């Protein structure tokens, strides 16, 4: 300790200020107060406190990592300083709010926020408690850094899982009640949050399981790889079969609300699979991808609607091939004019195309055909042997079939000659051409196959909602789909599903925080680009490009699994 000069202390001071700045920012824009209304553990912990403490925890950990000596004490000192410094901006906020009327220009600095920050103890005592809590957080982070990995990683997974279960208490308790009656439910949950004792028990159980698994993982993997090949294949087939069964009974487990969520995820995953061909495989940046979704949806609407705009008596199933073909045709039509464009220029033109389709849908010119701003109503749900698929649990199977088909086609294409043509073109168009690859047909095929998937998704979407309006097809959908590919991992099929779960499923479950949705999107994308540019579940080629160390993959898989649950 004596050896740490003032010079060295700049690291914890700087990291502490960054952490304090983040916590201050989250408080000032109202996130902490709003999230504070959601309890994770009854009367103990709210989501607001979690996001308030997240930055000091992470940055104190980083600062402990940079502590000069290998001794634990200097790391703890660094963590302590980081924690205390991180509290200072918030203390300043508390003091300022008690003396000035900050709400004139910071409307979110509400009495509720100040109460939360001071733990309801008044300005002076509250500031001290807050500083103490931050300091303790910093020290805890530093201690965690000094723990051996076998202890730290089970502890952190125990913590993360417990918090996640707490966050989704309401949904989970709902499902538990449906299956096991209210007995087990009352033990775990008090109303909308985890019971404190249950939280502690869960934390311990998960930590023990994680520790046990962490120790046994390698031996189990070795055992599996030492099995004879025939047994290994059986094992793989069995796990695939288990996965298929799980997919088939999923709506029964999830219930109506979660099935609806998963259906939205599926609609976006299907679009994502299509855009993945265009952007991930062929490297053509398409920002107007929503256009094909709209074309698929409008085709389905016009073909099947029972309202005044319907033009035929086709059912969902017989209209579906036409919708897909029409979308593929428009994909080709977009492809033709942009054949010679690359990179940014291509992105701008496709962006324009997306807007043109949306504005055409809104326009008076096409109003007699597709209804203008009033949209098209009375689209029937998909019929099925005399009944029609009305419930989300039933529609789930239509969407699942679409996704599986698209995933299978994508997977086969990626291994085919065409897949390699796309890969070569993505790497370098000129060299690809010099290798004997026909750029024209390669590009057009990418555009139209991608458009076909999106059209399929749109057609199902129209039938699912039973009415469609132009404002459902705005630019944000294109951006959403592109983001989910980036978050999941460009060019990776499981990545698309993971991305859709994170970017479509999570916001759906956290609806009460919808006003911060885009902010969190942005933050997630920035963090992704800095920490994990290859995505949560990257394809082999991308991983090779962006990471040299191979062991990262297991970590990515684990993260993806967590996100999937």
């Amino acid at each position, binding site marked *: 300790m004596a050896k740490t000069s003032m010079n060295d202390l700049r690291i914890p001071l700087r990291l502490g200020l960054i952490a304090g700045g983040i916590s201050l920012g989250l408080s000032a824009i109202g996130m902490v107060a709003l999230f504070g209304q959601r309890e994770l553990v009854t009367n103990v912990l709210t989501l607001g406190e979690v996001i308030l403490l997240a930055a000091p925890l992470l940055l104190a950990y980083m600062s402990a990592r940079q502590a000069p000596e290998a001794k634990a004490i200097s790391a703890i000192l660094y963590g302590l300083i980081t924690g205390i410094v991180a509290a200072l901006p918030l203390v300043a906020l508390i003091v300022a709010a008690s003396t000035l009327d900050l709400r004139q220009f910071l409307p979110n600095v509400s009495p509720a926020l100040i109460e939360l920050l001071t733990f309801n103890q008044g300005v002076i005592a509250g500031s001290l408690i807050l500083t103490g809590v931050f300091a303790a957080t910093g020290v805890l982070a530093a201690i965690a850094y000094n723990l051996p990995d076998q202890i730290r990683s089970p502890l952190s997974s125990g913590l993360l899982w417990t918090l996640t279960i707490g966050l989704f208490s309401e949904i989970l308790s709902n499902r538990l009640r449906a299956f096991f009656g209210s007995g087990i439910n009352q033990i775990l949950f008090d109303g909308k949050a985890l019971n404190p004792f249950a939280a502690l028990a869960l934390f311990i159980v998960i930590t023990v399981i994680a520790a046990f698994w962490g120790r046994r993982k390698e031996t189990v993997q070795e055992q599996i790889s030492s099995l004879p090949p025939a047994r290994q294949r059986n094992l793989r087939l069995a796990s695939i079969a288990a996965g298929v069964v799980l997919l088939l009974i999923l709506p029964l487990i999830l219930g109506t609300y979660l099935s609806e969520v998963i259906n939205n995820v599926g609609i976006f995953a299907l679009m994502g699979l299509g855009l993945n061909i265009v952007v991930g495989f062929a490297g053509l940046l398409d920002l107007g991808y929503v256009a094909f979704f709209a074309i698929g949806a409008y085709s389905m609407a016009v073909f099947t609607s029972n309202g005044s705009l319907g033009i035929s008596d086709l059912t969902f199933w017989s209209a579906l091939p036409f919708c897909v073909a029409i979308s593929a045709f428009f994909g080709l039509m977009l492809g033709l004019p942009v054949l010679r464009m690359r990179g940014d220029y291509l992105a701008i033109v496709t962006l324009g195309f997306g807007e043109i389709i949306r504005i055409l849908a809104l326009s008076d010119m096409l109003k007699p055909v597709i209804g203008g701003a009033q949209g098209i109503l009375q689209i029937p749900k998909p019929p099925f042997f005399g009944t029609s698929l009305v419930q989300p649990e039933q529609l789930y199977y239509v969407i699942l079939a679409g996704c599986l088909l698209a995933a299978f086609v994508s997977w086969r294409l990626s291994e085919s000659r065409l897949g*390699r*043509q796309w*890969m*070569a073109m993505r*790497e*370098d168009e*000129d*060299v*690809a*051409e*010099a*290798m*004997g*690859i*026909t*750029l024209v047909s390669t590009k057009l095929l990418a555009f139209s196959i991608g458009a076909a998937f999106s059209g399929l998704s749109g057609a199902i979407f129209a039938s699912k909602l039973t009415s469609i309006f132009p404002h459902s097809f705005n630019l944000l959908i294109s951006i959403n789909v592109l983001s989910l590919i980036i978050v999941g991992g460009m060019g990776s099929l499981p990545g698309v599903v993971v991305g859709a779960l994170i970017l479509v499923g999570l916001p759906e479950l956290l609806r009460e925080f919808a006003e911060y949705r885009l902010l969190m999107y942005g933050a997630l994308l920035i963090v992704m680009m800095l920490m994990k540019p290859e995505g949560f579940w990257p394809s082999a*080629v991308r991983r*090779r*490009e962006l990471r040299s160390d191979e062991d990262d993959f297991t970590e990515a898989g684990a993260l993806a699994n967590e996100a999937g649950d």
Partner: protein
Amino acid sequence: MAMLEVHDVHAYYGNIHALKGISITVEEGEIVTLIGANGAGKSTTLKTISGLLKPRQGHVHLNGEDLAPFSAHEVVYKGVSMVPEGRGVFSRLTVSENLDMGAFHRSDRGGISADMERVFDLFPRLEERRTQVAGTLSGGEQQMLATARALMARPSLLLMDEPSMGLAPVLVESVFDTIVDINKEGTTVLLVEQNAHMALQIASRGYVLQTGEIVLKDSAEGLRENPTVQKAYLGID
């Protein structure tokens, strides 16, 4: 009849008149070199032959057939393969994936794997690194890979654009040795080089380009002895 006949070709980049009436002939089995300074039009000439750039005037004949109606990827089918300038390997793919791409238009699996062995004989270094990502190879290895990939198309005419660029002198020598080996196996080579000294040692004939025109053509020996060439390109006073 010459294998390749470029007759009075004019080519443009937008309004820039890059080639002002180039005529070149290459006989089967030869190594012919185009030498000249930066911006003389050497690479442009190769692009015009391979179909990446269309001449506005003049014609390119391969074995008597006019290449004008064919686009770049079809010219590859005709047996003309190019090693692009600055190597142009697919840097995110592995060595063997790059080689597979070279044989893209072929469907004879047996022949492809035989050729793969052949190029590994020529470049043992690549065999050691067949699963490595091309972007992590050294400059010399990338040049080897680009050349090997072009050979995978089993070309009758190989166009090479500055294979010595950015390589250490000792590597330059081995690259040129390989070019001679490739030529001995029956592939005709048209070689664009700034390193005139090396190029004129392995070539049988050469052309000197200056600002889009051919100012000299002669046997390699003749060019080596030519005082203008010695002064301008070989650094001999």
